[in-house]
């Protein structure tokens, strides 16, 4: 292989290979952290969804069919213990299992809401680190900063298992 061909091959490899991005180690560590925070967020979201899905299913089973359909549909859709209590006349006639389920779901919802707010602070701190990192990369190589930016955005959209 002559020197021109070798040079050409090297150029092709470096142009297309994302592994060659600068600040590789730091970037990867931030990516991992971002994915972890996102997965925690998705886990909370899933917990909340399944929590209130159970309540909705239960209410659909126990609320009388004689209840006005609009009111019934509304009550089943409400994913909030405090607000469910405002359906006073129907709430007070619910069986103990349903009442306990609503109360427990409300408590868990409040706890998760607090954890979400805490997570939000962590995500803002992490976002700050990512942005500082991107600025550092940008000073050396604006093209690489854009590629890193893209990687962070992809990571933030990835589904977790």
């Amino acid at each position, binding site marked *: 292989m002559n020197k*021109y*061909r070798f040079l*050409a091959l090297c*150029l*092709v490899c470096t*142009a*297309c290979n994302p592994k060659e991005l600068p600040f590789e180690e730091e970037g990867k560590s931030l990516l991992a952290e971002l994915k972890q925070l996102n997965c925690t*967020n998705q886990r*909370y*979201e899933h917990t*909340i969804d399944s929590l*209130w899905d159970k309540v909705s299913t239960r209410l659909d089973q126990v609320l009388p069919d004689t*209840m*006005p359909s*609009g*009111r*019934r*549909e*509304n009550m089943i859709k*409400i*994913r*909030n213990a*405090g*607000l469910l209590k*405002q*359906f*006073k*006349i*129907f709430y007070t006639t619910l069986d103990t299992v349903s009442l306990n389920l609503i109360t427990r779901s409300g408590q868990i*919802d409040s706890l*998760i*809401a607090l954890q*979400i*707010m805490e997570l*939000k602070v962590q*995500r803002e701190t992490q976002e700050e680190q990512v*942005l*500082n990192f*991107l*600025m550092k990369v*940008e000073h050396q190589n*604006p*093209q690489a*900063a*854009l*590629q890193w*930016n*893209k990687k962070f*955005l992809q990571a*933030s959209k990835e589904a977790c298992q």
Partner: protein
Amino acid sequence: MRNWLLTLRNLAMMALLAVAVFNCQKDDPTDITDNPSGDPLKESYELAKAWNTVQLDIERFSRGYRPPIAARTLGYTGLAAYEAIVNGMSREYNSFDGYFKGLDIPEPNAGETYHWPTVLNATYARSITHFYPTAPAAQLFTVYSLEQDYNEKFRFEVPNDVYVRSLDYGRQVADAVFNWSRTDKDGDGAFLRTTDPSYVPPTGPGKWQPTFPDYSPALLPYWGKVRTFVADATDKCPEPLAYSTDPNSEIYKQALEPFKLVNQIKAGGAPSELWIADFWSDDCATLTFTPAGRFIAVASQLIEKEKLNLGEAVEIYARVGLGLCDAGIRAWHQKFTYNYERPIDYIREVMPGANTWNSVMCPDGSGRYFTPPFPAYPSGHATFGAVAAEIFSGIFGENYQFTDRCHEGRTEFIGKPRSFNSFRQMAEENAYSRLPIGVHFRMDATSGVAMGYGIGKKVNSLPWRK
């Protein structure tokens, strides 16, 4: 021949190389916008509308956000949004930094570029997080998702240093407005104390007392002490009608209106009145946004119809928010000044054979209906609607035709859109709606509307524009 072939091969290799290299450059830095400031007077209204829609959803589902509290919150979040971008449109708009006593908004760095949509997105997200600490988890997810969606978009549109600076500035503005709101001790954190166990309503003929069926204690009896933006003691209502049980008295005649209308509705008649009553109700917790939030929903429709720019949209939300805040404070001040009883108590006590009469508000399906747990005079609904109408008239003109579609498609009540030839017509219909629903006298509606128009004029007189 060989040399010629070699040159040809080398040229082909170079061409391949060029194609390979350019194909890999998907993230061309020239993709970044040429106008990194995102001029609010050129950007679309959509970001502001999206956040206000989310805010109405949070207001609907967060514990303690009863109408006057929701109105106050809309005032502060609207002001924060306006202050966040006002420096990006300072050629036309003024900041209220220092205009409202104690309001201290941080200045953007002189000579540095900001991306105003990023600033605004950060301000909305931070403000809503501050102002709705009781938001359920599902609503918090909505807030954070919306913030993230816009941030992901903006991070590709603007240079990194501009993006970072903008994000930081937006959060600073939100913090500044929130901290200022906290200096108003009567309003701060009110969602945690909507009633006051120490409050004892005055007694006497015609004085308000907790009403059938649940006899809930007075909602926010001291709300009149909360700090206003523009309204003051001159924003008040005339003395209500003298209480009388005489069938020839004016109050008796006024009580006949809700009495007869409700009776007609319950007998399956008066379909137009039922539509109006249902359309404007917005009283039943979790069913819709609050009666104050309703006018943010109307503002969103007007903004969309007129395809306003981001700056104009934020200005309207701020004006309406400030107006609603003050409308709630003054209406509650007057309510607990006069402590006038609700039609349900007057009718039950005074009208022959009506001692089981009830409104048609918020049916719970078991035959029970409700009455708001605070005095009647003046109507809060009327005051909220009139302040918004006056603000809209100042912006779009008095005789503006539009259709309110904010409950279109709802099946739990009559949400079929209604059309108006002017904002005043809208406000007056909204005020009137409290009669067929059975919770107000005509004087409550009339005085509430008059007071609301007055407060709206004051909001429009603020030095918004240069």
